[in-house]
């Protein structure tokens, strides 16, 4: 990427928009109209620009092995996200990036993988899951613990179900509020820990979700004897540039955009429990 283009988006073509839940949609962008979309690594994000409306950091949720395609899962909660999810195929959406660090899939090779996701936090973890399933022999057990507000908020339901039937793979979901037809777990995501066998010495954990949830998950993992260096978190802060000069995403000494968003837990530990940091 040249210096001149770092703040200028590519006008990428929307290929399709799929409804995931009542408020969350997955947009697939594809190369075309003279725009070649870049490759990305699992855990990275893009800045998505909506013509005249604004720009937001959005994690890439698609398959890293599919060149020419970038997929984003977006919850419609504001003006720009609403405009994003109401795009039609053929419309353009501005894309900058990909930016940021990746899940440490290379150094986790040969180890068990524990993935803990909360809400839309599952989106930046999906590319890592795709990678692990594609290179299945490179990794040990895969455990996915996923918490959402309610049954209607669960993302990627068909994939969750399909993954749960795979060998050496355990997928557990829980919701905060069940409702009468829900037969699954109810409670925060840490309540799922009693259902899994964790080998702390040979597991690498990838965590993404609300900060409060991540704090409790880390506490749970440390209680179970997991070394801090094998725990990795994906952080979120306000971002206007994604390249370290708008200043908005600072958390202590870290710029979430360029030093993260994925951090080894020891780098985040001094800052996580500081309210209003």
């Amino acid at each position, binding site marked *: 990427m040249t210096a001149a283009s770092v703040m200028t988006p590519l006008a990428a073509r929307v290929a399709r928009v799929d409804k995931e839940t009542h408020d969350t949609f997955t947009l697939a962008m594809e190369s075309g109209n003279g725009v070649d979309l870049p490759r990305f690594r699992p855990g990275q994000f893009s800045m998505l620009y909506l013509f005249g*409306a604004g*720009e937001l950091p959005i994690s890439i949720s698609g398959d890293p092995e599919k060149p020419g395609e970038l997929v984003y899962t977006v919850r419609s909660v504001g003006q720009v996200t609403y405009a994003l999810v109401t795009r039609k195929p*053929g*419309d*353009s959406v501005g894309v900058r990036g990909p930016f940021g660090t990746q899940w440490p899939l290379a150094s986790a090779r040969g180890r068990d993988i524990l993935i803990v996701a909360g809400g839309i936090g599952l989106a930046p973890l999906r590319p890592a899951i795709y990678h692990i399933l594609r290179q299945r022999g490179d990794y040990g057990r895969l455990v996915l613990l996923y918490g959402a507000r309610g049954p209607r908020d669960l993302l990627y339901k068909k994939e969750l179900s399909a993954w749960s039937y795979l060998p050496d793979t355990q997928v557990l979901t829980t919701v905060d509020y069940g409702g009468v037809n829900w037969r699954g777990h109810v409670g925060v995501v840490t309540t799922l820990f009693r259902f899994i066998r964790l080998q702390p010495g040979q597991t690498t954990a990838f965590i993404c979700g609300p900060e409060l949830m991540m704090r409790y998950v880390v506490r749970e993992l440390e209680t179970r004897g997991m070394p801090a260096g094998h725990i990795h978190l994906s952080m*979120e802060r306000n971002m*206007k540039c994604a*390249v370290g000069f*708008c200043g908005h995403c*600072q958390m202590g000494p870290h710029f979430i955009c360029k030093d993260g968003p994925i951090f080894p837990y020891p780098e985040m530990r001094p800052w996580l429990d500081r309210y209003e940091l």
Partner: protein
Amino acid sequence: MTAKAAMRKQFTLNPAALEQLFSVLESHDFQIVGPTIRNGTIQYDYIKGCKELPSGWTSEQERASCRLKRRKDDALFGYVPGADSLKRFLHPPELRLFRAERENGVFRILDNPAPAPKLAFVGVRSCELRALSILDRVLAEDRYPDAAYVAARRRIFIVAVNCTEPAPTCFCTSMGGGPEAGGGFDLLLTEIVSDNQHVFVAEAGTSEGSGVLAVLNPGEVTKEIMAALHEAMDRSKAAFKREVATEGLRELLYESFDHPQWDRVAAQCFLCANCTMVCPTCFCVTVEDSTDVPVRRAERWRKWDSCFTQNFSYIHGGSVRLSPKSRYRQWLTHKMAAWVDQFGTFGCVGCGRCITWCPAGIDVTEQIAALRGTAAPAASDGAG
């Protein structure tokens, strides 16, 4: 005088040669930015010729106060400048990032920003030069360079002046600097003004500076002039009123996260963001988007932003830093601690602008002293 400065060849220029300097710079297509009187203060602005320099004026500064005052002499650089630093020109408050146009849902980017003008800065202090080198680390030498800054920065010419008249708000000597410019200039002037002489000692810092200096027919320096120069600088160094103890400052800030002083300063702070606007190194920006009424054309602008605003830290669900104390703490901790981790230097050069331009009279040197648990050193009201 540093060893490096002592080795540079020094010449003299009279005030008329300074006028010629402006013509030479203009003939090289530079737009000249220098201190001048605007809105009742001395500010950097675009100027034409020496006559627009604030000859015979000075600027009295204290906390929450900046007043123009007549001098007894005709000094051209007898003051520290006002609110704005070179930041306003090299990292401007508003910059259009691009325009775009849309038809049938498909948009295209129309342009990038216009090429940067050639700027020559006159009357630049040591603190400004050090601030510029800090901005370089942030905007030019980090992983991603800011294209607009790099383009503007590449084309500048700097005529620095040694600071013979620090304000009571200044504390550059604490922050690793001092009234003498150590480097980062093309030309350096020291103004010597007394009852019987008005002369500038000039030295070049770059080959471009040497070239310009040669055209001005500089004179030889005499022993008397050198003695006057040393006396002026000694007087300047003795004039500093404020200081900050910087040893262990980074650790102090990180460890003071729960210090009650943050509540006390928050009770004074208006969250007006003045300190961040006038700071020569505060670089934070936001972006704003706009369209025409039929939403066919759009523009994206970059604007200065401040960590003192509530929206600065907004993520879905609310702002991370809601309380005033968390915002003041973020600012000071970034300046004096996180900046060291991020860019290998404090984000402060001790120019004192945040003290002068804080309408609540908050003094950063006192805040740091309070965090240390020591009395604010020689920084009581009305000092100087």
